[in-house]
Structures are given as structure tokens and as C-alpha cells.
């Protein structure tokens, strides 16, 4: 088991990959066999794919606050006239799709949470064909992301109620960035730097769900979290480094989370949830 990013990086050198280290650790910690572990992850991948497909086709939440916007992005990409790049926009579309399905109480795979489930599924389904990833490589992608996520979870947290959205979409975006770096042929040290760079920008992000629903701003934060994972990965692959070591960044995220007042930790009392429009929406939805 690894308890820090430093240990994860060091231990991974004894294995063919970070994914193999994660699988070996899982076998040590549980009663499951290697085949069972890979099968469970394959099932998670299937649910991710299905939620992307369902959301892109167009869904709507019970409240009507969110839905139909993954489809809008799909049409926009089809038209082919956009400012940024197609892989990023596909990641954005797919992330929105998953969280629109989540908002309507559809079936998703939490990565690390349901409110942040769009990021990892979004980037993986946007890059897998471009990188010619086999089914096994896609499953490895999820083990890699899980390894980095596990360290973040144990040293900071993954609940908006504990530490704000920086620990939900922030963690999701960081672990997605790390998995993207490895999938593109980067080193585990570069993956670690991508985690640090991503979390530095996500730090302080509050959890302020409008009307206490996992819809606004959650769906669009997943979209932007996915785009940031792609950019962070490209930054480190270009040779950029993080000045502050990754473990120190994660500890800083934990400290910032502790300092956030309760109104900004998933109580629906601060931030966007306290705007006049949000207050009016809450009254309209719940009376």
C-alpha cells in the first residue's frame, strides 16, 4: 500500500506500470483475485460508456434545471467551427452527459464521487480512439486514476461536505490528468506533476449546490474539470514542472478544506446557492 504520491511513484518502479501496482495492492488488501479485480473495473467502464451515450442522446432532470446540453455540444462539434480543440470539446460533452444522467438519478459510476463522475469518463471516452487504446489499456487507465485518487482521498478527502468541490471535481480532475499523462506515454513523475498542477488551480473551489441539488453548478464544473485535466496533462508532457511537490499540494488542499466554512461545504447555504435566483429556484422546486 502507498500512503503518499512519493511512495506511489517509488513503488511503481517495482512494477510494469502504476496500474499493475494498484492491482497488486488491491490483491493484498482484499480477498479478490486478479481476474475478479479486472472484471469489476471492466463493469465500471461499461457503466461509464453507457452513461456517456445516454447523456449525449439527451436527458432531462426531474427539476428541469439541467439536461439537454451534452446534446447541444454534440451538435456544435458536428458543425466543426469552434475556438478550442475537438478532443477537449468531446471531453466536455461527455462529462456533461454523465452528470446530466447523474442528475436525473440515472446509473453512473462514481469517480471518485457521483457529483464528479463526468470528468474521468469524459476524458477517457474522448481520447481512447485517438490513442488507439485497447480495452485492457482503458481498464488500466482507470486503475492508474484510482491509484492517484486513493492518495488524495486518504490525505485530503473526496467529500464536498468535508472539504468543498476542490476535493470532488478537483480530485477527479487531478487523477484524470495523471491517467491521461500515462496513457499518452508520459512518466509516473510527470503524472504526479499533473496532479499537483491541477490541484493548485482547483484549490479553494467551494461546494455550493443550488437548491441542494447536484445540478447547478455541478454539471458544468465537471465539463471544465475535464478540460483542465486535458490541459494539465499537455502542460507536463510539454516539459512543465510543479514547483511545489505533489504531496505538499495535497496537504494544502486538506488545510484549505478544513478552513472552508460550513456554508461552502455542501449545505446549499453559500456561494451560488445564496444568490437571489438560486433562492427563488429552491422555493419553486421544494415550496
Amino acid at each position, binding site marked *: 500500500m502507498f500512503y503518499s504520491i512519493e511512495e506511489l511513484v517509488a513503488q511503481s518502479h517495482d512494477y510494469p506500470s502504476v496500474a499493475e501496482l494498484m492491482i497488486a495492492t488491491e490483491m493484498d488488501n482484499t480477498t479478490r483475485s486478479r481476474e475478479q479485480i479486472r472484471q*469489476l473495473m471492466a463493469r*465500471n467502464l461499461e457503466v461509464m460508456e453507457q452513461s456517456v451515450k445516454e447523456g449525449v442522446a439527451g436527458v432531462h432532470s426531474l427539476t428541469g434545471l439541467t439536461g439537454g446540453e451534452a446534446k447541444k455540444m454534440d451538435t456544435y462539434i458536428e458543425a466543426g467551427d469552434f475556438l478550442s480543440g475537438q478532443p477537449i470539446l468531446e471531453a466536455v460533452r461527455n462529462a456533461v452527459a454523465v452528470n446530466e444522467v447523474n442528475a436525473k438519478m440515472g446509473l453512473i459510476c*462514481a469517480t*471518485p464521487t457521483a*457529483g464528479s463522475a463526468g470528468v474521468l469518463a469524459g476524458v477517457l471516452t474522448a481520447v481512447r480512439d485517438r490513442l488507439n487504446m485497447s480495452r485492457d489499456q482503458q481498464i488500466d487507465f482507470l486503475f492508474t486514476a484510482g491509484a492517484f485518487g486513493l492518495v488524495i*482521498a486518504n490525505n485530503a478527502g473526496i467529500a*464536498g461536505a*468535508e472539504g468543498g468541490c476542490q476535493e470532488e471535481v478537483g480530485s477527479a480532475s487531478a487523477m484524470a490528468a495523471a491517467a491521461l499523462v500515462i496513457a499518452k506515454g508520459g512518466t509516473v513523475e510527470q503524472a504526479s506533476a499533473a496532479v499537483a498542477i491541477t490541484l493548485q488551480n482547483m484549490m479553494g473551489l467551494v461546494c455550493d449546490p443550488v437548491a441542494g441539488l447536484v445540478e447547478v453548478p455541478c454539471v458544468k464544473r465537471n465539463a471544465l474539470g475535464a478540460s483542465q485535466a486535458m490541459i494539465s496533462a499537455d502542460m507536463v508532457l510539454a516539459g512543465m514542472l510543479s514547483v511545489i511537490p505533489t504531496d505538499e499540494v495535497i496537504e494544502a488542499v486538506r488545510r484549505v478544506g478544513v478552513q472552508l466554512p460550513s456554508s461552502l461545504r455542501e*449545505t446549499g447555504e453559500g456561494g451560488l446557492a445564496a444568490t437571489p435566483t438560486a433562492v427563488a429556484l429552491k422555493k419553486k422546486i*421544494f415550496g
Partner: protein
Amino acid sequence: MPDIRFHSVFDIIGPVMVGPSSSHTAGASRIGKVVRDIFGEAPERIDVYLYESFAKTYRGHGTDVAIIGGLLGMAPDDPQLPDSLKLAHEAGIKVTFVPKSDKVNHPNSARIVLQKGDHKLSVLGESIGGGNIRITELNGFKISLSMGTPTYITIHDDVPGMIAAVTNIFSAAKINIGTMTVTREAKGERAIMIIEVDAYEPEILAQLKALPHMVNVTFFE
């Protein structure tokens, strides 16, 4: 070394669940399911006390629906989960939700009180993120149950020799016990053992259930 609360890659990638929140929906339903399994029978009455973030957002996050779904025995990916309140009503179970303003140890906390005749159970559960949970109090006793390792929970009469009888079964099967918590409702009434083990052996469950004075045994992976 940090406080290790997450042990498995599937705590991070997973669970597969119906939305919208892993802590407020999947975690809440898991707490409900564990409480139901410990109770061992269908309750007539369910009182749920919600604290902090759970108290503020339970309707928007579907926490109420999820806890009742779990108490009806549903897993986080059960497609019937959104209909749980209706199903409980149809089954004649009386359900109340009470948002509380008290400060508690974790912002996502729920106290669940189940009743059937004289049989009563009170459990405090915490949803710590990503659908992962901790049970921290059982009938007023402080416990720590993370559900991250294979765990047996036994409910039995509070008579001498029960601990020896139970541990003998694990010993004979060469299964190592990691941690063990023993608690009881009152002297001479019902007692509870929470046993975290290193391996699962299917036959053990039946052997434990067959012990004299054993009321109920459940296993969680």
C-alpha cells in the same frame, strides 16, 4: 501516516450507483442497508435524524429516498431506489425524517432508529465520500465499522461462552480476526459482535447461525 479511510481502488473508481450523490445517495443507502442487516427483520417504524449537510440538502440529494431504499434492502445501483418512499408506505412502515441543528462529528451524519414491537435499534452512520461509510455508534455504544474489509456482525443472547464459540469457528477455519468489538443492549439481553476478518469462507456463515443463542449473523464484503 495519515488516517487511512480508503483502502480499495473501488472506493475511488466506483460504486456503480443511481445518482445524484455518492455521499448523500449511495453512501446513505449503504448506511440504511447495514442498519437493516444488523436489525435482522423488517421494521414497523423508521425514524431518521439528519445532521449538518445531510439535514440541509437531503431532499435535493435524495438522501431520504436512499436511506429508506437501503433499509428496504436495496443496493446503491437498484433501479427501484427512487421509488423507496412509496414502497415503504405500501409495506405499512411508518417513516419520519427529522433535520437536526446539533453539531456532530462528521457533516454527513444520520441517526437511524428502527422499531418492531419491543425490538429497537439505534445506529449513527457517517457518509465519508465516494459512497464510503462508517458506522460510529450502535445503541449508544461507540464503535468503528468502516465496511472496507470483510466483516461479520452477530446478534446473540448475552450468555457466557458466546465469544469463545464464535472465535473457535474462525480458528478452526484458519481465518485470522483483524479487529473485534463486543457490545450489548443491557446485561443479560442481546449482545452484538462486530468481527473484521482477513478472508471469507462461505461455510462459516451457516456455522455461526447454527450456534445456540445466536439470533442473526450477517456478512459484509
